[in-house]
């Protein structure tokens, strides 16, 4: 754990002491080396699950894929931000990268935490750099509104979580995940316990986001600069899923009845947000609503609490993280050229940027869950486990899959196909940096087809 945390923390002095010319190359190189070292976490030596070097930070097959995703994403965020930060003064560039690194540190400690309180503190701590990135470096005036929604939705959800955790500590004497998994089942038989159950999960449902409390996400994803959108879509949403999976162990048997409305809300959310995607004119907004749709499926998979549900949820989280981040990067390349997020302004781009059209094509195919990519594998497992829970859900999840395919196709056709308008013909070519960025997003997704057991979690 420290072999990754210490190089990440040392990125701070590296950033602040490097010369302006070599700031970005050195940041990229060091973060890629950190990503390489993080791959060693995938070697799980023990069969009991947790691999720990000390009592407070440990990895297990559930947290490892998310940790590797987090560490992989930092160099990608640095690559993506290099161009749009170029006109800014050097210290502001350093500050931006420092915010990304601090976010990375908090995320590593959150996913690696064994104490639930430490997870909670890091969960809250990630809000601060993200808020600063959105409100300081966002491009439109709506970014202030977006930051407010983002901060207060998450805080309102997580304050009950703090109370619930303190109550849990009171009754079990410990909040270490290593011990709680072996503790006696709690007697949960009063109305207060129902509220406690809700308190444990609301924070993560808001973060995922569940359909009813998802309003912060389109605002935050759209107004954030590209690195902010990437980290929000790829990792911060998964904090919610990860937290839910950790807490679910202790919440039985209440979850059998109490999860019912949330599963239905999640499934309905897939349909609603998918339909909203079909009506979007803003490119980033479409991708943001598509994230809500996919995470609705993940929430449904986690709430049914079966091995297939959990496994499908983890697979879909990792796959969606990479693909959604890739789509935001592509949207940003369009934005940097046309200075607008309107899909109508960037049509027919296949004619002028054919290789980029290949990236759009692969990213959209992955988004609509094409076999054999892990997106499909996760979706199929979740749909199957929901069908097992209640056969009627197949109507909702099947329709949801159809609508996902529809809006992914719509996105691709709108941006790539059709006649190229005159004002597009003068767009500058795609940079090598942007091609590399897309390759580094999509190659891991394709490689995961060959070894999916890395992301099956601890239910297998």
């Amino acid at each position: 754990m420290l072999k990754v945390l210490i190089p990440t923390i040392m990125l701070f002095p590296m950033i602040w002491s490097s010369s302006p010319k070599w700031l970005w190359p050195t940041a990229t190189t060091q973060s890629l080396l950190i990503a390489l070292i993080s791959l060693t976490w995938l070697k799980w030596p023990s069969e009991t699950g947790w691999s720990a070097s000390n009592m407070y930070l440990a990895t297990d097959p559930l947290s490892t894929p998310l940790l590797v995703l987090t560490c992989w994403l930092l160099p990608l965020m640095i690559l993506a931000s290099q161009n749009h930060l170029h006109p800014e003064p050097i210290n502001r560039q350093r500050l931006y990268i420092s915010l990304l690194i601090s976010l990375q540190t908090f995320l590593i400690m959150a996913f690696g935490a064994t104490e639930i309180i430490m997870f909670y503190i890091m969960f809250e701590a990630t809000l601060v750099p993200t808020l600063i990135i959105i409100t300081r470096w966002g491009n439109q005036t709506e970014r202030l509104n977006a930051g407010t929604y983002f901060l207060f939705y998450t805080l309102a959800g997580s304050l009950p979580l703090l109370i619930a955790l303190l109550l849990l500590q009171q009754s079990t004497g410990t909040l270490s995940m290593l011990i709680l998994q072996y503790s006696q089942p709690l007697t949960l038989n009063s109305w207060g316990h129902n509220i406690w159950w809700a308190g444990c999960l609301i924070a993560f449902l808001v973060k995922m986001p569940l359909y009813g409390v998802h309003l912060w996400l389109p605002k935050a994803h759209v107004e954030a600069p590209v690195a902010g959108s990437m980290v929000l879509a790829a990792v911060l949403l998964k904090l919610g899923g990860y937290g839910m999976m950790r807490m679910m162990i202790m919440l039985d048997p209440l979850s059998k009845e109490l999860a019912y409305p949330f599963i239905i809300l999640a499934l309905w959310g897939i349909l609603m947000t998918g339909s909203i995607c079909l009506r979007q004119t803003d490119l980033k907004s479409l991708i943001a609503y598509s994230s809500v749709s996919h995470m609705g499926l993940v929430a449904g998979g986690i709430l049914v609490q079966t091995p297939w549900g959990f496994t499908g949820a983890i697979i879909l989280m990792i796959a969606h993280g990479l693909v959604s981040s890739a789509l935001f990067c592509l949207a940003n390349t369009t934005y940097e050229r046309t200075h607008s997020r309107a899909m109508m302004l960037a049509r027919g781009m296949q004619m002028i940027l054919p290789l980029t059209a290949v990236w759009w094509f692969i990213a959209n195919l992955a988004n609509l869950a094409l076999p054999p990519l892990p997106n499909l594998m996760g979706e199929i497992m979740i749909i199957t486990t929901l069908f097992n829970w209640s056969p009627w859900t197949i109507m909702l999840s099947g329709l949801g899959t159809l609508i996902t395919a529809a809006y992914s196709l719509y996105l691709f056709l709108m941006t790539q196909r059709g006649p190229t308008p005159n004002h597009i013909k003068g767009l500058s070519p795609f940079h090598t940096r942007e091609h590399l960025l897309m390759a580094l997003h999509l190659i891991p997704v394709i490689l995961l087809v060959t070894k999916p057991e890395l992301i099956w979690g601890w239910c297998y």
Partner: protein
Amino acid sequence: MASRLSRIWPVVSRVRLSSALGTRCVSQTPKSSAAGAAVASDLQPVSPALQDSHGHTEVNPFEKNPDFHGFHHHDTFVDEWNMRLAFFFGISVAIVIGGTFIHYLPDHGMRQWARREAERLIKQREAEGLPLMTENYYDPSKIILPSSGDE
């Protein structure tokens, strides 16, 4: 069908836009939503949106440096070396060496062993004519049950 749609769609949307907003296609709606950022005034030649913070219009970086890789706008040396470092550490080191490491990870949870063992047992039992699996895991004759009646 999709190609027909994509041919009709730009015309339809342009008609709707121009009829709703006038032929100059300048949006008068207040920028209250994210889609408000997509104003068509970006289409005008020298608008503030096309100028950077110093008031200069955008310069195509490929004109000065045809080998621009997207990393550093002014210094070709740094741009080229940044590209080389990013590609080397991103692809050759992280994906190739990392991928090789992952490929040779030990068989966690004995999953691959279990699959091989199952195939071996199936082949063996089919050759011997035995059923692939018996109902009883334990031999029923070896199970000693307490006598019913007392307790």
